[in-house]
Each structure stands twice: as structure tokens, then as C-alpha cells.
């Protein structure tokens, strides 16, 4: 026998009360853990996806929508911009690099991004199979898109017009051909299909089967050639002060990924903080419940505690017995809560992945979870301290003499 064994025996003897206290504590810890894991992963992912992109230039509209659509591929684009405007901006001395993006189509929910080879290079993407696109209608799949669609190099597919819920008819007349599959990068590029900008222009022309892509492109008027956005890297720190103003003064809109991401998290932050506070309330309620359970147990166990003193237990040992009980409940609640939190995060992640949204996984761990364990243990100890102190002060003889 030892203190933990005796404590566990008491907890086992009250299965319903023990289970309810555990559940309460676990739900609180799980709520906080889900928020911690999801927000942390979202922030990390958004930071990674936006790294190295100082400015996004696109059609006028909501700057947050522009960033969400062009950088994170989450929202619908604000519109298209003329190729000539984009070229003029790209030649600006304040621009070190401008990556063109042409959006509008998708394949089985994965966006088709018309761009150049700078885009995969920006995310450090490497080929797992095949090669990058060399001519119009060549397509390269990000790792997640390839895994989900099960397409491989050499396969053909028809793009659907639109993205996500707004998907329209397939562009059957001009199928894409898979030329490469990218290795996982842990960034947004894993969830898209890359091709040349010309491919996107082509599929939106009236092309008949057998038409030569080069001839169709040559026949296109310059005004027909549009982009959706430019991902811009500044040439110097000074550009940050000048370029957005210059862009916004013209036909285009400039949006800062860093600013818009921060704004998005500030907006989400209120809801997240409310949920987090709810989690803390649950944990504190669990602490109160443990306190009430142990206090009630004192009355039920007064004879047991007196007998233990009779058998030689010191006051300190009796105090330790109740504290260990509170700790055991807290530790079990913390472990259960973290397991539950990770499972819920994985379920949430699976739902997001099914919609090709930002991936979140329950199989990631955060150092902050140790603080959650510490919080739970502290709640357990604090809840047990007063009952434990009262147990240690109880007189033995009067209780035994009650008979």
C-alpha cells in the first residue's frame, strides 16, 4: 500500500463522482487545447504561406479578400487585372520580384493557379515526380492535391470553371496533362495545381478539340489577357512606404499579407478569447467540483481518517492523501483532456482538409500543452488543500468514541 494506491481505491469506490469530475476537467482542458492547437497551426501556416510576400496587387475590392484569395487560396478573387497594368507595376523600381497569378478554375476543389516557375521556387518546392510545366496545358500538382485526386504524371484532366462551391462546367475541350508532382512543402502550394498563365487564358477561350494552343494564344487580343494578382517582393525597405500608395492610386489595389493576416486574427481573436475563457471557466468549475467532492468525502470518511490516525498515520500523511487524490484526478483529467483535445482537433482538421481549407492536424504537439497540465495539477492541488488541511486537523478519539 502507498498513498496513490489508497487514493485510487477511494476514487474507484466513487466511480460516478470521479467520472463526472474527470469529464468536467477534461472538457475544459480539451476546449483550451483545441483552440491552442488550431490557432497555433493556423498562425504558423499563414505566416509560412505569406513569408517573403510583401505586397499583393490585384483588383480593387476588399484587401483581406485579395490576400485570402491570392496568398492563402481561401477566398474568391476580387476580380481580374489587365496584363498591361501588371507588367507596368512589375517594372517599378520598388519591386524586386513580381509573381503573376491567374485564378479562376479548379479541379475537384483544388485551385488551378496559373503562374510562372518563380512561384514553386518561392516556396522551395521540389519535384517528387516528373517535371515542371513547359508549355500550355501542362499541370503540376501539389502533394496534397495529387494525393487526394490520385492523379499521376501523364494523366489528363479537365478543369472546372470556378472554385469551391461556385464550380461550373468542365472545360472538356482542352484537357490538362499532368507533368509533375511536387514533394510536400508544408505550405499552401501543397493544395494547388500549378500551370502556366497561358493555360488559364486558353481554357477561357472558345477552343474546339484539335485547335493548336499556340495559334489560339497568338490570336488573342492583348486586352483579353488578364491576371488575378501579383505577389510582390520589395526591392528595399523604403518600398513599403511608397509602393502601396502608388498602387492604390492607380487601377490596382495593394494589400499587405502581414497586415491583413494580423487583422484577420484580431477579428477572430475575440471569438477565440471567448472560447478560451469558456475553457478556463470549465477548468475552474472542475476545480470547484473536486473541492466539493473532497469536502463531502471528509464527512463520509471521518471514520476512515480517524482509523488511519489510529493506525499511526501522521497529520501530514492524511493531508498528503487528499492532495494526492486531487492531484490524481487533475492528472487524469489533464491527460484525458489533452487526448480529447487532439482528437477533436484532428476531426476539425479532417473537416477542413475535406474542403481543401487550411490544414490543421491533431497529431501536432505544442509546448504550451505542458502549461495546461500544470494548470490542471494546480487546480487539483488548490481544490484539495482545504479539505486536506481539515482532514489533518480532525480529532481521532471523539470520532472513534461515537461508536
Amino acid at each position, binding site marked *: 500500500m502507498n498513498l496513490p494506491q489508497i487514493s485510487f*481505491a477511494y476514487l*474507484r*469506490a466513487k466511480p460516478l463522482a470521479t467520472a463526472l469530475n474527470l469529464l468536467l476537467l477534461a472538457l475544459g482542458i480539451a476546449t483550451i487545447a483545441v483552440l491552442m492547437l488550431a490557432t497555433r497551426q493556423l498562425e504558423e501556416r499563414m505566416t509560412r504561406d505569406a513569408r517573403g510576400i510583401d505586397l499583393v496587387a490585384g483588383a480593387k475590392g476588399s484587401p483581406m479578400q485579395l490576400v485570402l484569395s491570392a496568398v492563402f487560396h481561401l477566398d474568391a478573387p476580387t476580380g481580374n487585372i489587365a496584363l498591361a497594368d501588371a507588367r507596368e507595376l512589375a517594372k517599378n523600381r520598388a519591386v524586386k520580384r513580381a509573381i503573376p497569378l491567374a485564378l479562376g478554375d479548379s479541379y475537384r476543389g483544388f485551385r488551378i493557379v496559373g503562374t510562372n516557375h518563380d512561384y514553386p521556387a518561392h516556396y522551395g518546392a521540389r519535384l517528387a515526380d516528373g517535371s515542371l510545366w513547359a508549355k500550355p496545358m501542362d499541370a503540376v500538382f501539389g502533394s496534397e492535391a495529387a494525393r487526394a485526386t490520385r492523379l499521376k504524371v501523364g494523366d489528363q484532366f479537365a478543369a472546372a470553371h470556378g472554385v469551391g462551391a461556385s464550380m461550373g462546367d468542365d472545360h472538356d475541350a482542352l484537357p490538362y496533362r499532368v507533368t509533375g508532382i511536387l514533394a510536400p512543402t508544408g505550405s499552401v502550394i501543397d493544395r494547388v495545381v500549378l500551370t502556366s498563365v497561358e493555360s488559364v487564358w486558353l481554357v477561357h477561350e472558345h477552343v474546339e478539340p484539335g485547335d493548336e494552343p499556340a495559334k489560339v494564344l497568338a490570336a488573342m487580343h492583348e486586352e483579353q489577357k488578364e491576371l488575378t494578382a501579383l505577389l510582390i517582393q520589395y526591392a528595399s525597405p523604403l518600398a513599403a512606404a511608397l509602393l502601396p500608395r502608388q498602387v492604390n492610386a492607380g487601377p490596382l489595389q495593394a494589400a499587405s499579407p502581414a497586415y491583413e493576416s494580423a487583422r484577420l486574427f484580431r477579428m477572430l481573436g475575440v471569438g477565440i478569447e471567448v472560447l478560451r475563457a469558456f475553457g478556463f471557466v470549465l477548468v475552474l468549475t472542475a476545480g470547484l467540483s473536486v473541492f466539493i467532492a473532497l469536502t463531502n468525502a471528509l464527512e463520509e470518511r471521518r471514520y*476512515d481518517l480517524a482509523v*488511519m490516525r*489510529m493506525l*499511526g498515520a501522521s497529520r501530514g500523511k492524511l493531508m498528503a492523501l487528499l492532495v494526492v487524490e486531487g492531484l490524481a484526478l487533475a492528472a487524469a483529467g489533464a491527460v484525458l483532456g489533452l487526448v480529447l483535445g487532439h482528437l477533436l482537433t484532428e476531426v476539425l482538421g479532417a473537416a477542413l482538409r475535406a474542403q481543401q481549407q487550411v490544414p490543421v492536424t491533431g497529431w501536432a504537439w505544442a509546448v504550451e500543452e505542458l502549461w495546461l497540465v500544470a494548470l490542471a495539477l494546480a487546480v487539483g492541488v488548490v481544490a484539495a488543500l482545504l479539505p486536506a488541511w481539515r482532514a489533518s486537523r480532525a480529532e*481521532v*478519539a471523539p470520532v*472513534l468514541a461515537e461508536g
Partner: protein
Amino acid sequence: MLSLKGVRHRYGAQEVLRIERFEAAQGEKWLVLGPSGSGKSTLLHLIAGLLEPSEGTVEAARPVGIVPQKLHLISSLTVAQNLLLAQYLAGVKQDPARAAQVLASVGLAERAAARPRELSHGQAQRAAVARAVMNRPRLLVADEPTSNLDDAHCAAALDLLETQAAECGATLVVATHDARARPRFEKRLELGA
């Protein structure tokens, strides 16, 4: 060995026990008789060290084994665990073999894994005696061990206490108001109301 000199014990202003001198040699069997409220339980608690006397001195050989009136086995533990608990709380090295031996000696070898609620009153009393002798006490005290027992069980309970005290070489002090115990004890201490 047990010695009380000039012992007074009071709860508030009320004196509940007064013993000028009492001595019991090692291995002796003593019966403490007296009606309810005469201070029998208080005397046992003073002997066991659970109470400090208001006045006087109590010297008792240690360890002391106690069989409380209500037995008070820990219900969440098995019978064997109750015995090991006595060793753990007394700071004695836990010895499952000793627990098995003691349980066999009180006829509970087959009930080691039982919970107290699964025992009959007679079995629970034997388990409480087994717990009291687990640490080989030099002094064994029992509070009203025959209350609510018929004659046969009364005799069995006293037999058990005497046998176990003898095996440990312990002084036995039984407190009761049950007159049926009187003939079995040559040494008696009578407490007034």
C-alpha cells in the same frame, strides 16, 4: 507493560476519567468494566496514545493494536489491503506473507481479497482483530468487542482476542459493559458512572 499514575481526563469542565494508579504486567489480560459514560473508551484512547491525559502519566508498551467498537475497516480496500495499510501507516515494512499468516490465524485466509461489505459481522470482527495484531503489538486493546453478539459469538470474539494477544505476547485490555465477559478475566478494573 502498562502503567497509569494520577490520570485525570476532562472534556471541558467535565471530568470523565479518574484513575489514581493502574499497572498491568506484560502478557496479562485485563477487563475494564463499567456502564456507558464511565470513561472506558477514553481510557482505551489514552492507553493507545490517541488522547493526552489532562493530568497524570500514561506509560504503555508500543506498538498498540486497537480493535474499535465499530471495527471501521476501510471499505474501499480489500481485507488484505486493510492489514497492509496498518503496516504502511505505522511505517513498518509491508509484508504480504505476514498478512496471509495473520488472516489464516483468524480463519479468513479465503477472504483476503474480499471487501469489508462482503463480510459477515463475525468475519469483519476477525478482520479488525487481524489488523490490530498485524504489527505484533505489545499491547492489544478492544472496545466493546462483544456488543450485539449472541453468547456463542461473544465467546468466539473473546477467544480470538485472547489467542491473538497470547501469540504476540501482548497485554490485553478489553473494555466492555457486557457482564458475560467477567468470568473470563481474573484481572478487572471497574470504572464508575
